[in-house]
């Protein structure tokens, strides 16, 4: 799984099958955000920009013109309130705040006073004056360099277009003929919500991750989606035929007939497979010889838990608190954090939730002015937490308070040495003492753990294990640091190999050290959700797999179809191999044998 794009020249057996265009088959790889395979024609969605013409009106009509504007503003506010309340249900109050700024502008008396005055004095049409007045402010905003201002400029643009469209009384443009695949640079929650009223086959976007608003919404709407494709809008044209694979995260543009057939077969297999997976939902993740494995999910928002619960998960293996920071410029207060954390803990109860303290880069704490040359090796994660105990302690207090039902574990990201663990633990003790003195209840035994994602921490796993209650391996960063590969860099991303022998031996070492100190160890990186890796990780002794919700049933299926003893034998053999390709081939052959109906990606 990479985010790179590769092109494949397919020689179709019959070159004349589509004579009008000798279109080349192109495979685009992104992030699977919502499951399902569909084929259909693309509808490119670009922001609708209304045309505004300057017109002179009759003095007698000025009042009518003002009236038109007044109604348009009213309608705009109604639209936005509707989207706001829908968004509140679907994505939660905090994230819905993105619409608030727009509603505030609609209520700006000074702005509209100026607009009304100009209409009656200059006798110009309403949409022209609205456009002219608001654009003045936008120009000043776009001149600003900071990201916050550019975002606000977008809000202003949205609200301006909304008012103008309503003056012109055009219907919302979220209706178009036929069933289509929406292809867009990005989708705002408002777009996603409006589109979902039509027959949408799938969403495909250049930007966004598994946890982007569009991804979350498409899952709750049960529409397949692939996000983070980077260049989809560059390659796709209106009406292009394409395949969207929301399981594998691929989009095939202008597929050949062979490819179409291949995906049809794959789709049937998936559908059948999903039916069988459904039967697994309430069964435990347990090997044939009775070893119970903990199988949980990674989430970023409280709203994702409902979906997680439908997948038959043992809880949350990684809650990324950074979701709380989205779209805001200050850190949330202890109360705000407490509300979010306790909601998650409650929704999950009696299953456990592993909460990770903020894993942010320095840019979140100081202004962009002090940009780091090498942020991956810079001020990140626990380093910021220890340097800014005000932020860290607030978060720890909120997590402790959410732990009253004893199902919350807390872990620290980006730990590089034992000292950091000790310092962070001391801050936890301080937070506990202050809560005690205030008679605020919390779980005295709340488990503290460490993410192992820095090579030095992996080497020192044993010493770290002495200090904490559990370890969790974050493979995405660990692999990048261990192999010195930035997987976002296309020149070297093929060197990012989760099956590199150095990686699997390191994982082996971490697990061994954790078990020697009798603490459990989990994995919450992408590797935990790769079916090719499951037998290996099981055999190495992994206690917990934390995966994205969409792949959970597959991993459970594999765990349930093997004996731990056999997995151990496979892992022992894999550890002896010397290249990534050897390891991968070896594991693929075993997974095909143990669980032949698992659909593996053929592309790699």
């Amino acid at each position, binding site marked *: 799984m990479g985010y790179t794009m590769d092109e494949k020249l397919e020689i179709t057996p019959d070159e004349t099958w589509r004579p009008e265009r000798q279109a080349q088959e192109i495979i685009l790889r992104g992030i699977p955000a919502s499951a399902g395979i569909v084929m259909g024609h693309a509808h490119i969605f670009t922001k609708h920009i209304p045309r505004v013409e300057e017109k002179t009106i009759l003095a007698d009509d000025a009042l009518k013109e003002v009236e038109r504007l007044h109604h348009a503003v009213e309608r705009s506010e109604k639209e936005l309130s509707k989207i706001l309340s829908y968004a509140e249900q679907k994505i939660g109050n905090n994230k819905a705040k993105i619409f608030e700024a727009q509603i505030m*502008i609609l*209520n*700006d008396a000074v702005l509209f006073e100026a607009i009304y005055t100009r209409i009656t004095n200059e006798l110009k049409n309403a949409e022209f004056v609205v456009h002219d007045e608001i654009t003045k402010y936008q120009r000043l905003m776009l001149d600003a360099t900071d990201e916050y*201002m550019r975002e606000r400029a977008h809000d202003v643009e949205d609200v301006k277009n909304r008012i103008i469209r309503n003056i012109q009384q055009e219907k919302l443009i979220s209706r178009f003929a036929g069933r289509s695949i929406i292809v867009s640079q990005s989708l705002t929650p408002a777009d996603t919500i409006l589109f979902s009223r039509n027959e949408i086959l799938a969403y495909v976007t250049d930007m966004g991750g598994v946890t982007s608003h569009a991804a979350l919404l498409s899952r709750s709407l049960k529409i397949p989606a692939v996000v983070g494709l980077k260049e989809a809008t560059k390659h796709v044209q209106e009406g292009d035929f394409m395949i969207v694979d929301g399981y594998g995260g691929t989009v095939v543009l202008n597929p050949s007939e062979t490819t179409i057939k291949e995906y049809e077969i794959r789709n049937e297999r998936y559908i059948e497979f999903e039916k069988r997976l459904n039967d697994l939902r309430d069964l435990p993740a347990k090997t044939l010889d009775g070893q119970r494995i903990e199988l949980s999910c990674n989430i970023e928002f409280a709203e994702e838990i409902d979906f997680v619960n439908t997948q038959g998960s043992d809880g949350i293996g990684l809650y990324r608190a950074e979701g709380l920071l989205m779209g805001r410029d200050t850190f949330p207060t202890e109360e705000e954090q407490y509300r979010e954390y306790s909601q998650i803990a409650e929704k999950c109860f009696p299953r456990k939730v592993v909460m990770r303290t903020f894993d942010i880069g320095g840019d979140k704490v100081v*202004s962009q002015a002090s940009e780091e040359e090498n942020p991956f090796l810079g001020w990140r994660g626990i380093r910021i937490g220890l340097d800014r105990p005000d932020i860290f302690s607030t978060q720890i207090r909120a997590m402790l308070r959410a732990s009253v039902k004893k199902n919350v574990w807390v872990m620290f990201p980006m730990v590089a040495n034992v000292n950091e663990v000790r310092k962070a633990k001391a801050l936890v003790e301080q937070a506990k003492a202050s809560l005690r003195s205030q008679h605020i209840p919390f779980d005295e035994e709340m488990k503290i753990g460490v993410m192992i994602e820095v090579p030095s921490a992996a080497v020192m796993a044993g010493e770290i294990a002495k200090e904490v209650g559990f370890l969790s391996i974050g493979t995405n960063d660990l692999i990048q640091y261990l192999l010195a590969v930035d997987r976002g860099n296309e020149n070297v991303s093929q060197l990012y190999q989760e099956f590199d022998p150095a990686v699997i031996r390191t994982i082996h070492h971490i697990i061994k050290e954790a078990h020697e100190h009798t603490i459990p160890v989990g994995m919450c990186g992408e590797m935990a959700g790769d079916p090719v890796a499951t037998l290996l990780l099981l055999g190495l002794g992994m206690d917990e797999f934390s995966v994205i919700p969409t792949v959970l049933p597959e991993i459970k299926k594999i765990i349930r179809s093997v004996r731990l003893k056999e997995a151990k034998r496979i892992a022992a053999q894999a550890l002896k191999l010397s290249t990534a390709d050897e390891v991968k081939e070896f594991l693929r052959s075993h997974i095909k044998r143990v669980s032949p109906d698992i659909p593996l990606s053929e592309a790699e």
Partner: protein
Amino acid sequence: MIVKEIVIKNRAGLHTRPAAALVKMAAQFKSDFYILKDDFEINGKSIIGVMTLAAEQGSALKLRFDGEDEQAMADAILGLFERGFDEA
């Protein structure tokens, strides 16, 4: 007319929330209220205007109050800046 110079104290500067608080406060008074930053002046009772300003922490602003209740308005608004917009 009252003119005061101030420096923004709160970490986030005059972002959406502080901007909203400022406009809401200004609306409670009858006098005019203008904010001057660098070379341009905006109406302090307009949210889109204050948003455009996006004055960062440490920015110097000139505030101008003009009208029958200018003293009370100046006191209230300077207090709001002084308290860092009541943010944590």
